[in-house]
């Protein structure tokens, strides 16, 4: 139920994001979700793509530092209260969130929340117990 996410180190320089996304595009790698976390000096680009290994390989060959981490993708209806229901469950279960970001699937019916938890095993158990759907990499890429 874990989804592989690719993380790329970026200096805070204009054009870096465009450079990375075009490298992926040139190699026919589709980006399903993306988020940037940054500080005054540097940023971390986090990506869900359809071919993690290939993305890592091409970015590394272009000189980027790349890491792969596991995240959870939680599907919620894209309507009022959808996000709140997940956050409430997380709070009830006492799960610590390292970071999160979201995207909406093509049909626009459901939102997908990407979470990185401190304790991933516990998070999987808790969210499944609360009745949430965790998406696999395969499903996300077909959305």
């Amino acid at each position, binding site marked *: 139920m874990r989804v592989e996410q690719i993380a790329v180190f970026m200096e805070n320089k204009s054009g870096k994001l465009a450079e990375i996304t075009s490298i992926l595009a040139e190699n026919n790698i589709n980006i399903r979700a993306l988020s940037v976390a940054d500080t005054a000096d540097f940023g971390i680009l986090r990506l869900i793509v359809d071919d993690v290994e290939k993305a890592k390989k091409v970015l590394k060959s272009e000189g980027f530092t790349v890491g792969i981490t596991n995240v959870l993708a939680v599907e919620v209806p894209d309507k009022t209260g959808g996000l709140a229901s997940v956050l409430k469950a997380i709070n009830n279960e006492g799960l610590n969130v390292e970071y999160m970001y979201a995207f909406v699937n093509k049909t626009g019916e459901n939102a997908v929340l990407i979470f*990185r938890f401190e304790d991933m095993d516990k998070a999987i158990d808790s969210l499944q117990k609360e009745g949430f759907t965790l998406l696999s990499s395969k499903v996300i890429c077909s959305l």
Partner: protein
Amino acid sequence: METIYWEEEMETLPRAGLESIQLKRLQKLVERVYNTVEPYKRKMDEAGVKPEDIQSLKDIQKLPFTYKDDLRDNYPFGLFTVPMDDVVRVHASSGTTGKPTVVGYTKKDIELWASVMARALSCAGATKGDMIHNAYGYGLFTGGLGAHYGAECLGATVIPASGGNSKRQITIMKDFKSTVLMATPSYALNLAETMEGMGIDPKSLSLKVGIFGAEPWSENMREEVERKLNIRAVDVYGLSEVIGPGVAMECLKSSGGMHVFEDHFYPEIIDPETGEVLPPGEKGELVFTTLTKEAFPIIRYRTKDISRLFYETCSCGRTLVRMEKVTGRTDDMLIIRGVNVFPSQVEHVLMGVEGVEPHYQIVVDREGNMDTMEVRVEVSEGIFSDEIRVLENLTKKIQNDIKDILGVTSKVKLVEPKSIQRSEGKAQRVIDNRKI
């Protein structure tokens, strides 16, 4: 493993005995130099010091330093203390920045050099049974001939391979069953790569130890050359102004550093700014006085090499002081808010942080009247994280370590790999933007 000595008595002399020999030799040297070399006499007179003022080893601090410029000013033979009839050989260092520096040897000097080099070879475990492959360049450079005479003095078989034609050297090493390699560390790596290209497994050779010197090399390079050539790699130190290779040598049991053959070459560590002698163990500029050389003795020569001295007896049994592997040059020294900072110290801090690779750059600037130091560190996979917090903690840790160890506040900035400028494969370590 039993320690192999060349001159066991001298190499294991208790300090008191050693120091009394050093003092006697120093007194004789100063007297002779004062009375035979005009430039030395002039400098001593200016400093108001006479040969009879040398009553203890500590009195050496009264003597003026000798700089490379003194050698250039007295080019070519102005600092020799014997008639040219007694000089049997000269060597010269390349004069990339002006005139070359010339040094001379009497017959006895050549014998001394061979014997200290034989000591050095023994430190590396070499004996007369060894086949010594000498790939140091032969010529005006002291490396080739210095190592050669030492190997012969030891009674080993020496292959005077000199530099160049790596394929042929490897064939010789294989066919002659060379057991000891002497070369610059970069040439040793070149040999390893050539060997790989020729499809020769280093394990099929008879090499057991490599004696490398004549250029600075890091612990990383040591690890690489040991792995690639399947040998032990040990460090030799020397410079032509003192004698050539054989001034100091690492032993196989080294508890860190190279044994200085201090019965002939007296070392001091000084603060390069003030010239003050520093206490044992402190880092500073290495200064040498040759106690026994005839043709070209030198007093308190400023090597510009940064090192430390350790006086504890080594586990090999030698009492001779050990000098730390040279970690930099005073030319590289930065003064930041009054604190002496060597790029190598920053490198050392970075190497101590797990996962950090030594790809860094120091940028010095001045804001108002304050110097600022920024340390740029390339983010390798070993330290990268998808979490901002982890990377921020890492920069804080490096900043704290630099503050603790160097005593200077810095800002650590993480940068992308390969973003630090490299020229001819060598990274530019320091950018000083201060307009002073």
